[in-house]
């Protein structure tokens, strides 16, 4: 028997058929939808008179557009409101489960689905959102699709695709104190660049990922798209099984045991061949931040911005108002955002709270803490973290994508810097003219307390 990688095992078991010299028909087990990228797909099907093929394999949530304050009141923005209404109507008409705004299971699509046990090892999963790669943390093949493809899955529960190539990133060793999963992925992207993964599915392997929590694994897989890869994957293990067990949609009892037995067959066989391999050492990874306008422009927090004389590099620094050779330590920062599908899970808020406890937010800083889901929000309150945040002057808001893409009112003003736990530092991503510095929740919390970027390693006891 040939040696197979995790990715191959899952992909190959989902191929319905292959077109000669063309793509394959890939079966999709789970389809997640949200308000922004689904309406045109529903319209398309309606226009062509095609019914939704498998409505019970679709789960919907409202997240991109939703306000993070006063969610119980009608939405002020007429266009946003219309988008949400349309989602509700479409779901109702087509018998699709929807966790709408205010529902106890509502949240960012990539936070709520794993939390409910919808995300499981060995399945294929898609969503009209590039950060669907997040779900690969469970050993699923999960990737973002465009709206035409959303319509295809609606119509047939399948997609026409060419099998991507495989890539493995191995990180061995033990992470240093203060180095979080976010730093690991920012480090990898800073080394590999933003298009090294294009055309590939990436498996993360090695002791660093084996020892990571599911939350951390999701943070890593989430940003696979930021190096161009369609998805990321981590082999399922006991950590995965323990996370899934007893969740709402998880198989129960004997059915669960049977699944686990199957899931245990999925990890990459020893000796399997990848199209590309990279190996890093945990010892080289330190807390990271970005200085430019793509996620590959990352440095160790204590490092100086590198010199590079290209058009796009200079354009990027000009936008950020930074110069080559400059250090960002002590740079005053007025906005801090802890949230987004990268870092809005309970563990992220625990990390932030453990640093913030007993301290005060700096006067100059506006700090938004936006949980990824209603369940995370409830947990924050239950664990008493909210009290810590309140006492320190932080604002805990209601769940949603929020300032990650600033489609709602949560926008960073023109010209302001924001230290953000989200995944993209593109020009204007967090609001027109805003300047995003990506970092871990720990670095973000420290920035909010100090009012400037600090060397986090000096602030850990």
């Amino acid at each position, binding site marked *: 028997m040939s040696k197979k990688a995790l990715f191959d095992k899952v992909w190959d*078991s*989902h191929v*319905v*058929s292959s077109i000669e*010299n*063309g*793509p394959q*028909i890939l*079966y999709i087990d789970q389809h997640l939808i949200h308000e*922004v*990228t689904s*309406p*045109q797909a529903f*319209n*398309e099907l309606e226009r062509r008179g*095609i019914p939704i*093929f498998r409505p019970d394999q679709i789960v919907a949530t409202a997240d*991109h*557009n939703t306000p993070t304050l006063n969610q119980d009141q009608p939405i002020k923005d007429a*266009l*946003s409101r*219309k*988008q949400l209404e*349309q989602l509700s109507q479409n779901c109702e008409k087509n018998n699709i489960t929807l966790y709408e705004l205010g529902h106890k299971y509502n949240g960012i699509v990539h936070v709520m689905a794993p939390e409910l046990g919808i995300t499981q090892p060995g399945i294929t999963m898609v969503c*009209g959102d*590039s950060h*669907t790669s997040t779900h690969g943390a469970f050993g699923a093949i999960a990737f*973002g*699709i*465009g*709206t*035409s*493809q959303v*319509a*295809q899955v609606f*119509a*047939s*529960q*399948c*997609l*026409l695709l*060419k099998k991507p190539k495989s890539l493995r990133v191995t990180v061995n060793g033990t992470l240093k104190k203060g180095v979080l999963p976010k730093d690991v992925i920012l480090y990898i992207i800073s080394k590999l660049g*933003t*298009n090294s993964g*294009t*055309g590939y599915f990436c498996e993360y392997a090695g002791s660093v990922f084996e020892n990571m929590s599911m939350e951390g694994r999701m943070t890593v897989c989430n940003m696979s798209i930021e190096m*161009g890869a*369609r998805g990321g994957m981590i082999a399922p293990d006991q950590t995965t099984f323990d996370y899934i067990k007893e969740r709402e949609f998880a198989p129960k009892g004997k059915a669960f045991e049977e699944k686990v037995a*199957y899931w245990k067959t999925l990890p990459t066989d020893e000796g399997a061949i990848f199209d590309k391999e990279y190996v890093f050492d945990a010892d080289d990874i330190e807390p990271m931040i970005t200085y430019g306008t*793509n996620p590959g422009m990352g440095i160790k927090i204590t490092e100086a911005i590198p010199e590079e004389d*290209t*058009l796009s590099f200079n*354009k990027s620094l000009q936008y950020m108002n930074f110069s080559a050779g400059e250090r960002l330590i002590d740079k005053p920062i007025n906005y801090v955002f802890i949230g987004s599908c990268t870092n809005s899970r309970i563990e992220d808020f625990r990390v932030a709270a453990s640093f913030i406890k007993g301290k005060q937010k700096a006067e100059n800083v506006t700090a938004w803490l936006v949980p990824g889901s209603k369940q995370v929000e409830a947990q924050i309150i239950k664990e008493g973290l909210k009290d810590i945040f309140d006492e320190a002057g932080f604002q805990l808001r209601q769940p949603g994508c929020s300032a990650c*893409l*600033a*489609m709602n009112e949560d926008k960073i003003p023109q010209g302001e810097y924001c230290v953000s736990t989200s995944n*993209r530092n*593109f020009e*204007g991503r967090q609001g*027109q003219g805003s300047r995003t510095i990506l970092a871990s929740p720990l670095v973000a919390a420290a920035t909010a307390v100090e009012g400037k970027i600090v060397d986090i390693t000096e602030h850990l006891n």
Partner: protein
Amino acid sequence: MEKFTTLISTAVPLNIENVDTDQIIPARFLKATDKKGFGDNLFRDWRFNKDGSENKDFNLNKAQYTGSILVAGDNFGCGSSREHAAWAIAGYGFKVVVSSFFADIFKGNALNNGLLPVQVSEGFLNDLMTIIESNPSSKIEVDLSNQTISVLDSELSESFEIDAYKKTCLINGYDDIDYLINNKELIEAFEAQKTY
């Protein structure tokens, strides 16, 4: 979907690398529930100044640059999966985007909307950029059947790759949904005997 075979047109150069989907169509314009009108906001924050006036320095606003071919720097379309980016480019009137590298999802989205992504070598892209910038009225021919892109009245020509299945779709103007629906029996049979 509109059929695509051959296109002869002038081109607009956009000599910027890593053009991401947030630049192509900023998120605040994603609230529409149909596909129309996105062209008006293509490259919104580059095309317009803060006061809403046109940014005269941006190539799309320069009178000398016209046509339905956009020639862009490396790694075009990176970032989000929003198909609104392809709708915006097509809606503005482009039929072809040329670059030395396209992000995966963008490429697929473009093809699904009859917008042809033509991936060329870095050398060809540089030469093409120079020719258009020095002579904006240069005509470029994109021949899908023969998979070639050439600058008319010049030596500059290169062949490009395209998935055979996608090529057939574009030339005939049909899409993946048609294909999948015709295979429903296969799909149902697969569901009945899934092995996982």
